[in-house]
């Protein structure tokens, strides 16, 4: 789960990481009031969950209240990469003498949190990593031991010489590492971490992604979830315990298991269709889940056929079949539904499905081909 910059900064402040003063606004008058309170030039920053918001015109410098008013209005009217800007952060504009990148990620190779620091701050770190990887200093922390002050200091020394700056940066690295563990982050980033003409070190941006598996112990972060930034169907799916991702294709997919769901999508594409979604109904096959899944998929008007592919293990095919029948009766779909249910209790499922007489196929490849054919896509 992603949190916004302003929310990440709230977490930073609680951890003792210096950030410029500022607050969130949803209207122009609120934004002007905040700028007035700050009493100095401000930055007006769109709060949307996409990268490159600066390039899209979502981050602007406002010298005075008049400029704040103009920029706040323009940014609140923006839609960046499909997401309308509903909130803006108004924060003091600080003088910058240097920009550093500082980030911590979970590294899958070493199975350790890796701290990255680079003097090439302020720009996209992926670009730096791709073109000039030698500019990024990395350090893998022993997760059992934790980050020790001398390690943080040595990292700071990679970028800074002045001991006053080194101490401040080392302190921020230690605090950022604490944030990483405390909130179950999968990524935490300050880009840039800046120094000012009077040798202060300040985090002027903040990025924080939380490991979804850790959310159960962070209700305060779950509450930060921006429902506006999510697709309505994805919210409904999450609440029903389904794993769902909307795509732009024409074949709706209902599958159990993430790997099989991906494999099914891949074959849809291979045989000439286009998957409309990724959907994993999960292990325990509550018939209600199937009903919700069908409802979500049928809402998508691009969908020309639904493909249901179940390999029963923990999931029982008869449960899924019951869900399919209920969905069929309640939603009265006008597009073809093709099923393939095999594994645990497949025979019972067959009996249950007899009632509505849907087209079936015995194997993964055949059910995919049949769905594409019945969707009328094989002639296109």
């Amino acid at each position: 789960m992603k949190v916004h910059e302003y929310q990440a900064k709230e977490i930073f402040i609680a951890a003792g990481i210096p950030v410029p003063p500022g607050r969130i606004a949803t209207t122009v008058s609120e934004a002007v009031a905040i700028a007035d309170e700050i009493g100095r030039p401000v930055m007006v920053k769109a709060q949307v969950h996409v990268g490159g918001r600066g390039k899209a015109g979502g981050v602007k410098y406002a010298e005075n209240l008049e400029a704040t008013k103009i920029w706040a209005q323009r940014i609140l009217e923006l839609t960046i990469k499909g997401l309308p800007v509903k909130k803006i952060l108004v924060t003091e504009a600080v003088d910058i003498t240097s920009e550093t990148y500082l980030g911590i990620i979970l590294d899958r190779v070493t199975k350790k949190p890796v701290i990255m620091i680079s003097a090439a701050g302020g720009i996209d770190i992926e670009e730096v990593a791709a073109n000039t990887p030698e500019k990024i200093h990395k350090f893998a922390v022993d997760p059992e031991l934790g980050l020790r002050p001398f390690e943080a200091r040595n990292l700071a020394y990679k970028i800074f010489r002045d001991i006053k700056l080194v101490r401040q940066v080392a302190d921020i690295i230690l605090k950022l590492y604490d944030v990483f563990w405390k909130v179950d982050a999968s990524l935490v980033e300050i880009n840039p971490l800046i120094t000012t003409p009077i040798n202060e070190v300040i985090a002027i941006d903040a990025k924080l992604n939380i490991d979804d598996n850790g959310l159960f112990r962070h209700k305060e972060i779950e509450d930060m979830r921006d429902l506006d930034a999510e697709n309505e169907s994805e919210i409904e799916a999450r609440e029903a315990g389904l794993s769902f991702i909307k795509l732009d294709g024409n074949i709706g997919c209902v599958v159990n298991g993430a790997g099989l769901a991906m494999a099914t999508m891949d074959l849809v594409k291979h045989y000439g269709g286009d998957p409309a979604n990724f959907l994993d109904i999960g292990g325990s096959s509550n018939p209600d889940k199937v009903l919700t899944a069908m409802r979500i998929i049928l809402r998508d008007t691009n969908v020309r056929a639904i493909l249901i592919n179940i390999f029963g293990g923990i999931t029982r095919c008869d449960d899924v079949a019951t869900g399919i029948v209920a969905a069929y009766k309640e939603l009265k779909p006008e597009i073809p539904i093709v099923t393939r249910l095999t594994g645990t209790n497949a025979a019972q499922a067959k009996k249950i499905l007899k009632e509505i007489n849907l087209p079936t196929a015995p194997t993964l490849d055949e059910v995919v081909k049949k769905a594409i054919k019945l969707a009328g896509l094989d002639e296109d």
Partner: protein
Amino acid sequence: MAIFIDKKTKLLVQGITGRDGSFHAQQMKKYGTNVVAGVTPGKGSTKVGNIPVFNSVADAIKETKANCSVIYVPPPFAADAIYEAVDAGIKTIVCITEGVPANDMMKVYHYVKEHGARLIGPNCPGLISPELSKVGIIPGNICKKGNIGLVSRSGTLTYEVIFALTKGGMGQSTCIGIGGDQVIGTNFIDCLEAFEKDKATKGIVMIGEIGGSDEEDAAAYIKKHVTKPVVAFIAGRTAPPGKRMGHAGAIISGSSGLAAEKVAALNKVGIPVAISPIDLPRLLTERAKEMKEKEAAKKAKKKAKKASKTPKDGIAKKKAKNSPKSGIANKKEKKEKKNKKSKK
């Protein structure tokens, strides 16, 4: 033989009184696994089916000499359950639980390694050595005893592949699901190493998916260390970047973790990657044949080279220099020799 579990496996089920734990403990027993104990704190001295339940892993081991543990406890308690198993001396631990926080797993991963234990999972279906032992939730009825080793990051997709192998007449030595999370205890390379050593395994099927670089690392490892034929399947060719595709580990971040990269890395070292799971048995047969032929050709070449170095040949060559006629004869002779040897 098989890898990681066999007839000597004495299984302990942590979280045996839960819904999944109790159901699968009995399923495993039915399959023939030697399930000797269960653990649920506070439920000691009770039974699930005929399986005795203990309050702690240490108690269970003392009474039953269990040497393998399978974990079905909910995510908040999974890391603790693994620590308890390690400290009690269990060397093979299989964690089925889905949803364990990655930060917990980072600490657990290194602890398990330092204590010389093996962790499989979390977020995995476990493993099965057909007709010997089953630890986890893979349906036994789709498996068949044989000589193919299967390793996969997925659950139901693994079943689909087992089904395709069995249908294609290829039984399995061990099928193992290593889990779909970012931090897992056992990776492809660990399993490939074990399959390479295992005498019962003659061919290997590897099922990967988007996210991370384990498939690329496995490809490099196979090139160096694996002599048995390997074929692969990679799920997620159509997955969009930046979205977690169900599994915590199945995410394309930036431009890394793409299916195309994995397929290319595998193809580069000669490993065929199937478009559909159903093609895997055919690809494996072809790959085995191809490797055999290559091996035979290599041997023949070596022998021919050796033969060309014998003094007799040396004289023939000298002669060839003098008369062009005998030179042709010499070439023919060599060819015949080669053919004879490769037939052997």
